[in-house]
């Protein structure tokens, strides 16, 4: 798969995860989730509200940067995307660093709002393009946001699943384990197993992530890209609307 086709596949795949939502919020510096949210909004005929941090157009908040978090706690946000420098088999996220704390040899910016939104947004979709053993680890070095909580904790939200550049996993909150449900076109199961640092379940029927329809591709390359250009100009113009390279296998 070329980069562009994979990007389109991921946008489509993430958008599918928003079915039935009334309101999805997207954090800063998240072009693929933002594109997915806009695609899902177009497919919903405007019923899905999209709030994109960093956007002036797709952001109605008027009460300062606390409003997103208050809004989530009020139950007015149905879905959010989170990633992490490390994600482990219990869906714990690490956005802080690797190799000891606080003087981490590998240090990332910090936890942002993950520790909170992960607990309060009902459908948190984990997304990380890189699918490798250094990202998908058995146990994160630092828990920025915990994948699961004791049953008596107040936790209306949590992880729904994980989508990477290679595959899609569903997360079972009661078991605290991922199940591999989809491999992306052209990715072998053995490749996924080798690239995943944590143990996971295998769905009874391992599906292939459906490639976006021609209509979906047209939406991504047309109105979604046009809408996204204000927030992610490089991404929108260079990736989404660039004339496609010849695709030997029809897609990839």
């Amino acid at each position: 798969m070329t980069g562009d086709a994979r990007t389109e596949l991921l946008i489509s795949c993430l958008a599918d995860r928003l079915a039935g939502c009334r309101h999805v919020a997207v954090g800063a510096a998240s072009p693929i989730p933002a594109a997915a949210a806009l695609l899902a909004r177009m497919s919903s005929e405007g019923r899905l509200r999209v709030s994109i941090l960093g956007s002036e157009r797709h952001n109605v908040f008027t009460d300062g940067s606390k409003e997103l978090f208050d809004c989530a706690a009020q139950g007015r946000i149905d879905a959010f995307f989170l990633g992490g420098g490390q994600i482990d088999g219990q869906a714990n996220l690490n956005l802080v660093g690797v190799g000891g704390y606080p003087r981490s040899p590998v240090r990332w910016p910090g936890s942002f709002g993950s520790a909170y939104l992960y607990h309060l947004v009902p459908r948190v979709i984990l997304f990380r393009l890189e699918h490798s053993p250094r990202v998908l680890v058995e146990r994160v070095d630092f828990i920025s946001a915990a994948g699961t909580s004791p049953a008596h904790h107040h936790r209306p939200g949590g992880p729904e699943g994980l989508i990477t550049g290679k595959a899609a996993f569903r997360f079972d909150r009661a078991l605290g384990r991922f199940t591999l449900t989809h491999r992306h076109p052209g990715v072998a199961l053995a490749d996924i197993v080798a690239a995943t640092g944590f143990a996971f379940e295998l769905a009874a029927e391992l599906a292939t992530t459906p490639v976006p329809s021609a209509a979906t591709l047209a939406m991504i390359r047309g109105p979604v890209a046009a809408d996204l250009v204000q927030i992610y100009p490089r991404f929108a113009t260079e990736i989404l609307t660039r004339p496609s390279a010849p695709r030997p296998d029809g897609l990839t």
Partner: protein
Amino acid sequence: MVEHLPKVADSCAALAARIEDGARLALAPDYSGCAMAVIRALIQRDARDLHLVGVPQLGLQADLLIGAGCVASVEAAAVSLGEQGAAPCFTRAVQSGAIMLKDSTCPVIHAGLQAAEKGVPFLPLRGILGSDLVRHRPDWRVIDNPFAEHDPILLVPAIRADVALFHAARGDAAGNVWIGVRRELMLMAHAATSSLVTVERLAEQDLLADDQIAAGVIPDLYIDALALAPKGAWPVGLRGAYPADQAALAAYAAAAAKPAGFARYLTDWLALPDWPA
């Protein structure tokens, strides 16, 4: 509106002089209102031992202050240069132990400021339990919700900054500051003991005279001093005024990737004869 005593200071240096060494200084993130011209003046006056609070995260302002050796500690949900990647001076200072780090998460910062705004010692907050942040923040508490059974909940302490420093589009002679929908700047001002502000321009009229404008104004009651600083947020942007100068930010990120590069960048930046307005 009634006129209050004017508060317009003469220069960014005058504002920087009001921030004492050792002060707890609340700063806005790069997407909000950064008083970059005062940050430069702080470095020029060789400020020391500042305790930065990111509202809720920090960007270029913090990286410059840390690189210049002005900072003793940082409390923030994150420090980064956004699209330009990691904040290099911050990363080095964390790894060398040169600064004390109080890793947080966005809503804790907001709640801590709201506690200060309300004059209460703490605020409760949902979520967060199970995060290693809680283990590393001995100043946070987990209690059983007194209104329920078996319901642990996090309490976070008030964050009272000595100074809130930020940049905004407009101010007036009395010291009223228009911030529009950037209400985190109002929260900072309410929560801090004193607030120092730079503005793009001075409005002729009283910003509180018209309700339509007043809705986006921090009243002078909270503002201790104001300085005019056209393009005062540069190279980061100011909503409604100018976007971030991505080329300048990329140049900074590239230079600051190595300590020597940062040192050269800082020397040049401090020596700029005029602010690039």
